[in-house]
């Protein structure tokens, strides 16, 4: 197991390297001359040249990249153009809020998805099973912004059951207030992953229940509950295979949810940065998200290998 972990972690390094190259690269493909933008119209050529050399933009690309990377590793992610503050604390604070939302959404997605999948698998011909199957199919296609809008209008605005926006109430702080404010955004973000989890769990459970060893378990005189427990255990590898991707989808999709619900997370920050073309923030935001995603995938893969030892030698 330790050998697997080492190999997996080792493998992360080139990936992160590639990620940093891409993040750096996306900024460089932006059309237009950033120096001209910063210097303003009517600036003289010599002024622009001075600015360019001061920003280090006259060096060769690989050197610029090296500069950027070393700064980033030291923790310096530049200064936000729009906020006139260091980028890193800005991004990290926002990321913490996103993490809370993502966690909440993951829990909801698991509860919803596993329940739907289980019912769909255990009562495939009954009405409950078919409804659950249908719900998973619909959930998978639901665009986050559409659902967010529907929820806001019908569950918040019209009925007042939930707050329309924000992370905390005016007076509120504390867990209850957070959970209440976070419910609609988290549920919105959780729908698609819930649908995917539901489908995979259903397929995996049906698969396992048809396998030989289920009959073997019953032939040993085990109760249906015990047999089901072992069956579910055997669906975990399939679930974990998809889990990493789903978290990735969650992390990425928060942009829309946070924007519509005004949740002060990384997604909202990115949205605002796009409008203001605040490149350092966009870069830092995407970089941190990618980092988190990679780490989460390592965790998921490790859990997978822990449960299913066949994976360790692959």
């Amino acid at each position, binding site marked *: 197991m330790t050998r697997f972990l080492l190999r997996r972690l080792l493998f992360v390094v080139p990936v992160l390297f590639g990620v940093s190259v891409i993040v750096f690269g996306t900024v460089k493909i932006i059309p237009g001359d950033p120096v001209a933008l910063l210097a303003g119209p009517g600036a003289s050529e010599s002024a622009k040249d001075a600015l360019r050399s001061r920003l280090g933009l006259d060096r060769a690309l690989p050197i610029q990249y090296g500069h950027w990377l070393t700064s980033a590793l030291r923790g310096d992610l530049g200064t936000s153009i729009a906020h006139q503050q260091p980028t890193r604390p800005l991004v990290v604070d926002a990321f913490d809020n996103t993490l809370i939302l993502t966690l909440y959404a993951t829990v909801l997605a698991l509860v919803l998805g596993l329940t739907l999948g289980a019912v769909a698998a255990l009562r495939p011909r009954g009405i409950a099973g078919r409804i659950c199957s249908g719900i998973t199919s619909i959930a998978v296609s639901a665009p986050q912004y559409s659902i967010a809008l529907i929820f806001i209008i019908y569950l918040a605005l019209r009925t007042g059951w939930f707050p329309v926006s924000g992370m905390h109430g005016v007076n509120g702080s504390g867990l209850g207030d957070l959970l209440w404010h976070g419910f609609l955004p988290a549920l919105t973000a959780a729908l698609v992953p819930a649908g995917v989890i539901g489908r995979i769990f259903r397929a995996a459970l049906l698969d396992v229940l048809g396998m030989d060893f289920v009959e*073997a378990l019953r*032939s*040993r*005189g085990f109760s249906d509950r*015990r047999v089901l427990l072992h069956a579910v255990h055997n669906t975990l590898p399939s679930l974990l295979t998809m889990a990493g991707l789903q978290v990735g989808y969650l992390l990425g999709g928060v942009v829309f949810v946070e924007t519509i619900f005004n949740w002060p997370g990384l997604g909202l920050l990115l949205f605002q940065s796009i409008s203001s073309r605040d490149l350092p923030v966009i870069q830092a935001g995407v970089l941190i998200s990618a980092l988190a995603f990679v780490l989460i995938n390592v965790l998921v893969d490790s859990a997978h290998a822990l449960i299913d030892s066949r994976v360790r030698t692959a």
Partner: protein
Amino acid sequence: MNALTVEELQTSFGSIEAVRGVSFAVAAGETMVLLGESGSGKSVTARSILRLYGRGTRIDGRVRLGDLDLTALPDKQMRAVRGRRVGLVPQDPTGALDPLRSVGSQLVEVLRVHGVETSKLDARRRARDLLGLVGIPDPVRVMASRPHQLSGGMRQRAVIAIAIACEPEVLIADEPTTALDVTVQAAVLDLFLELQRRLGMALLLVTHDVGVAEELGGRVGVMYAGRLVETGSVRDVLAAPRHPYTQGLLDSLPTPGIPRSELRVIPGRPPLAGEAGAGCAFAPRCPQAVTSCHASEPALVAVGPGRAAACPIVNKTLTAQGVPA
């Protein structure tokens, strides 16, 4: 009183009859081989004894474990019988083991669920002993191994260990050698015989391989299209079959010395479950069939001490020739 008694067992899946009236008995310490091709209903018989089928299946007839009527037993008590008083060695050893858990934990589970051992420590010790009993040279290593880390033969032994863990009175083995190499097959069969001797179990073994029947000895019941067409001791039946199907089976076996081109194959194919018509199920393929064979299904009648066959034609011929049973 026999360890296992089966009376007029009938199993139907919806309108399809897979087993159409099978009766036999196995005494403690005795071996019974159910011999037949795939589709003959032999595996279904084995599973019906343990009531492993779901609600869509209808089972008629009577199955007795000693004097306990299994067919009328409520589910909860049936679960206490399964794995404890009747063990099953399923067909595919790889499929019978949970791929994610160690062999040891699966063994320990059986012991603890049935209350044979209560503490984990005792159960582990017992599991190691069981693995040794089935001929595994390194029980400690195998206990900690997952199924995919073991060879096919080891896996089969582990599955057997699980089946006999609670020292059942009856052991049912469904095609236990099919998934194994030929060299390992003989060893596993020897294991069965030894375990039977040690634990005094009644052994019911289902197979399509005549060689396996030969190796095991004991009694044999030849099945075709959901019924027994011939029963008797393995030695007698294989030496002098009293049913054309049994004869056909034996004829189609390759024997060293006889060139392949001379192998005789039974023409046609066995009827699928539910396909059998009015007369003898084997009649369409039988070289000795006459008109009456197609009219009514012949019953399994005694043709000698401990022997029965369901072919009046062969019986008549042999009796006329003065052949003793």
